[in-house]
């Protein structure tokens, strides 16, 4: 019997992570890109005029968005190289499992970049991010899910167009706005030591975004397959 949607998705995700683990190229470039961005943004502002604590949340989530795009670009690129996507499409598995598998792998990728970027922001900006590790992890995960849900779908679409990777940021970035704003605002509240209920509104927005777009993109994915 062919595997279920979930087990097929996990097989595909594990395959993607094995490839990434072996080549490591995308992860290294995304991690280095994130570190470079964090450093450059520090010098782009006058630290005596803007306190690092005011700067850090925006930098963290801005950089996170762009480094996430690097991972997403590669996602369907590796399928396209030798038309390996055809072997997935030819397998007796639901189309949705291909989307979910790619999304799970991309989520792991984005979370791994965050695990480097967050301590780096703490180090370079001297802000106590890790003191709020628990809450920050929730914000980061909710933001990552939204980003990956939309980005994985657009990555699948972009590889089939004439513009290929060029198109991904144009399509994705407007969709990242309702992810970056709540994540940055919630992080700013967190760093300012505001009471937790000030975060709740932002977190609700992130959760709603995740639910709507994970569902919508999973349903939409089968339509993005050329057939």
């Amino acid at each position: 019997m062919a595997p279920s949607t979930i087990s097929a998705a996990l097989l595909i995700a594990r395959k993607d992570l094995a490839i990434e683990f072996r080549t490591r190229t995308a992860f290294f470039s995304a991690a280095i890109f994130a570190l470079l961005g964090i450093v450059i943004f520090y010098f782009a502002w006058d630290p005596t005029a803007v306190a690092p604590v005011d700067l850090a949340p925006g930098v963290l989530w801005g950089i996170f968005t762009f480094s996430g795009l690097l991972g997403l670009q590669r996602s369907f690129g590796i399928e396209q190289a030798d038309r390996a996507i055809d072997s997935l499409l030819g397998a007796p598995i639901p189309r949705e499992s291909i989307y979910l598998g790619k999304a799970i792998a991309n989520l792991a990728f984005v979370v791994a970049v965050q695990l480097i970027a967050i301590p780096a922001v703490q180090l370079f900006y001297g802000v106590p991010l890790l003191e709020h590790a628990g809450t920050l992890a929730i914000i980061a995960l909710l933001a990552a899910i939204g980003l990956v849900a939309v980005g994985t779908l657009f990555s699948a679409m972009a590889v089939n167009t004439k513009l290929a990777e060029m198109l991904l940021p144009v399509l994705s970035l407007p969709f990242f706005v309702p992810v970056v704003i709540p994540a940055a605002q919630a992080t700013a509240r967190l760093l300012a030591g505001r009471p937790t209920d000030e975060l709740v509104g932002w977190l609700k927005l992130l959760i709603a975004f995740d639910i709507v777009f994970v569902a919508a993109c999973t349903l939409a994915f089968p339509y993005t397959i050329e057939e």
Partner: protein
Amino acid sequence: MNSPASATPAYDATPPKSAGGIDWLFLIAVLAIAAALARVIYYTPFEAVQGPAQKIFYLHLPAALCAFMAFGVVALAGIGHLWLGDLRLDRAAESSAEVGVIFTTVVLITGPLWARPVWGTWWTWDARLTLTLFLWFIYVGYLVLRGAIDDRALRARYSAVLGILGSLLIPFIHLSVYLFRTLHPRPIVIKPSAPSLPPEMLTTLIISFVAFTLFYIALVRQRYRLAAERDLLELEEGR
């Protein structure tokens, strides 16, 4: 859970009617716009506080409402296309998106023109103006996507997916921008339009809105004919 619907993409192979003749609807729409403008300029009193600048409002608001309507049509036509696989719906989406982007551009131009004398600044991150800016980005991206795909059926399906997701995105952008604004109190500028308009102004606004809607329909119809002729041409070349 099988592959999605979309059987044969249906082609409306009949050539568009009266393509060369006078488009009466278009003519009426242009006259309606001219009439509405005449009323705005000559027969509507100045607003006491904002002065003549307020009159741009009679263009700004109808354009914004028509843009929303246009993008709503894009999403509905997209759902219809994915469901039925009918290319006529995709042509409707394509036409409506292009006209919607034009109206959004009008909103983005008239907004700052009005804001400069009234609010004292060309651009402000007002929640509605910000939302309009993002609308513009989403649907310009939609047009870029369309231009990047040669296969007609694939272009239709991808556009439908983006059109639907874009409509889902609008409330989220609105909400996050709105929360951003309300949680970031800024120096108070003059509040945008008062809730109750005097009857003459309201009448002008309604006339203007009707004229804009007519103009929207006329433009989409023209653009649809163009799309139909292009598809027909491709169909003939393919034979």
